[in-house]
């Protein structure tokens, strides 16, 4: 997904799609006739294969997700011994009445919110720093960022697992070098809060490069004259950032923030792989919780209900993101 966002984020001003109305018509009058005639058939024909595939691989499962959450669907139904029966809102009442579910919701929201704030703040700081360092430092940072961005997520998780290993992890060793700190053999994952903090560090480390690179591209669009003018008028660094840089960057920032929310709410392999495929109760986020209900407890309908609730929880954020994308892309 990130790629689509990179391109769109990097080139907002370039993608101006002047008037879609003229798109179908050839220049000149004979074309105009054909343009309107074929205008509807040709694009739909071009779209047909794509829409067909999407209907099969996305549309059907989405519908199934909704219907599943209103049915009773467990092991017997999976093997076809029993037909799935409709149970109305039963799954939702069970889920919503479960105290554990609400704990998981709160934990997920806290996790995502903190991760997003950290990602955005650190990303912005590094992007601003990149403007101030010498060329060679900039190159070094860019290499490190792109390398960590390009790392397959599973590899990144594996490396973090190794760095935070309780006996041989380099981090415990490094921390023990500090005077008065004894971290040898410290297990980061006995405690949910500490463990999730490590996972969050991994998530933020993976997410910051995209934010920095996108923001850096955005920062080059901020006219130097405006900053100079603001400084002459007596604005301090913070003032310039707050009143000149930020307003110009705002569309990009909103887009990055909404995207980060969507991604950080959907964190799955980080928790799943870090905990060896069986996250403990205090590590459960909505995604892993839904997975566990479906594939460990074998209650597919309850799992679906939780997944659906997660999507609904995200709808507001998705709406903001889409509005921003459409505005930037000037699709209207």
């Amino acid at each position, binding site marked *: 997904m990130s*790629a*689509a966002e*990179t*391109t769109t984020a*990097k*080139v907002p001003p*370039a*993608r101006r*799609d002047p008037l*879609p*109305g003229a*798109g*179908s018509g050839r*220049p000149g009058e004979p074309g105009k006739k054909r343009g309107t005639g074929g205008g509807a058939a*040709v694009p*739909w024909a*071009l*779209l047909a294969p*794509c829409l067909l*595939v*999407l209907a099969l*691989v*996305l549309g059907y*499962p989405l519908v199934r997700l909704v219907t*599943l959450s209103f049915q009773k669907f467990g092991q017997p139904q*999976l093997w076809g011994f029993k037909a799935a029966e409709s149970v109305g809102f039963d799954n939702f009442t069970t889920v919503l009445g479960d105290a554990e579910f609400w704990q998981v919701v709160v934990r997920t929201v806290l996790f995502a919110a903190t991760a997003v704030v950290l990602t955005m703040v650190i990303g912005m700081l590094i992007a*601003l720093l*990149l403007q*101030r*360092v010498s060329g060679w*430092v900039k190159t*070094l*940072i860019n290499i*490190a960022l792109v*390398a*960590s*961005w*390009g*790392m*397959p997520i*599973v*590899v990144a998780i594996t*490396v973090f697992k*190794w760095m935070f290993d309780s*006996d*041989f992890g380099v981090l415990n*060793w490094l921390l023990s070098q500090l005077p008065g700190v004894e971290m040898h053999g410290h297990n980061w994952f006995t405690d949910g809060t500490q463990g999730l903090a490590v996972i969050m560090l991994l998530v933020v480390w993976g997410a*910051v490069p995209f934010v920095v690179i996108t923001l850096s591209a955005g920062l080059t669009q901020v006219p130097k004259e405006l900053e100079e003018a603001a400084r002459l008028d007596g604005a301090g*660094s913070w003032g310039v950032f707050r009143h000149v840089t930020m307003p110009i960057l705002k569309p990009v920032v909103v887009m990055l923030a909404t995207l980060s929310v*969507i991604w950080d709410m959907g964190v799955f*392999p980080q928790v799943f*792989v870090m905990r060896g495929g069986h996250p403990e109760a205090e590590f459960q986020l909505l995604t892993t919780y839904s*997975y566990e209900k479906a594939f460990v407890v074998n209650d*597919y309908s309850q799992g679906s209900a939780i997944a659906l609730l*997660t*999507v609904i929880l*995200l709808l507001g954020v*998705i709406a903001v993101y*889409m509005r921003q994308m459409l505005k930037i892309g000037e*699709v209207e």
Partner: protein
Amino acid sequence: MAASTAAAPAARPARKKNKLGWNLLGLLVFVTAGFPVYWMLNTAFKPAKDAIDPDPHLFPTNFTLDNFKRALQIGDFWGSIGRSLTVSLVVVLIGIAVGLLAALAISRFAFRGRKIVIVGILAVQMVPLVAMIIPVFLLLNDLGQYDKLSGLIITYLTFILPFTVWTLRGFIVNVPKELEEAAMVDGCSRTGAFIRVVFPLLAPGMVATSVYGFIQAWNEYLYALMLMSQNHQTATVWLSNFTTQHGTEYAPMMAGSTMMAVPIVILFLLVQRKMAAGLTAGAVKG
């Protein structure tokens, strides 16, 4: 915020001095951001017994390739690589072929329902993959496609196709319509104009999109784990084989990680540039 304390109206020499501070801070960022990557490489190339030394050396002392030899013996390395390659390549080919047509439709034609299609394609990218795993699992189960590469390919289209359409749309929009119109004035048909004028300009973008899509498909973990059995692991899932009840072989695991990550990071570096360059390269030249 705090990073902008270097007041601009300072005199020249003061500026230079300031730069030193920023550079040091920059180096700190470089070291922090790059450390996990460095530590992976460092562990991969050191003897396995050095890796579990209670006093890990930050800088390499002994160099060995043993970990790579060991990693190759674990599980079915080449088989999993082969499967990942097959799935990723096929997905990208289908994605590009189908996606290009759709991208053309939404970027070069005006028709009723266009906006709905665009919103739809944007929206489906936002549905978390994890939320879809249950119905996708059941769908493949019904179709008899569980534990089959074809099933995995179908599944990967859920995220590769919308991504491809949207990204290609961005590239097509950047090819000026005037070029196409000029070709048509000179007697090209609409299709001819596309093949002779737009397509060559689009090629770098298509390459970049394909490589990006390939990387995404290659890196996918959850579906590969859920939809394929132990005997048909893909590359990402293969990495979990280093952990058994007897513990984890960390040094070989880092060697495995290196083999998995380095080609992808290099591909990524290449496309990074092309993605940016492909957007503007050679559009209207005189």
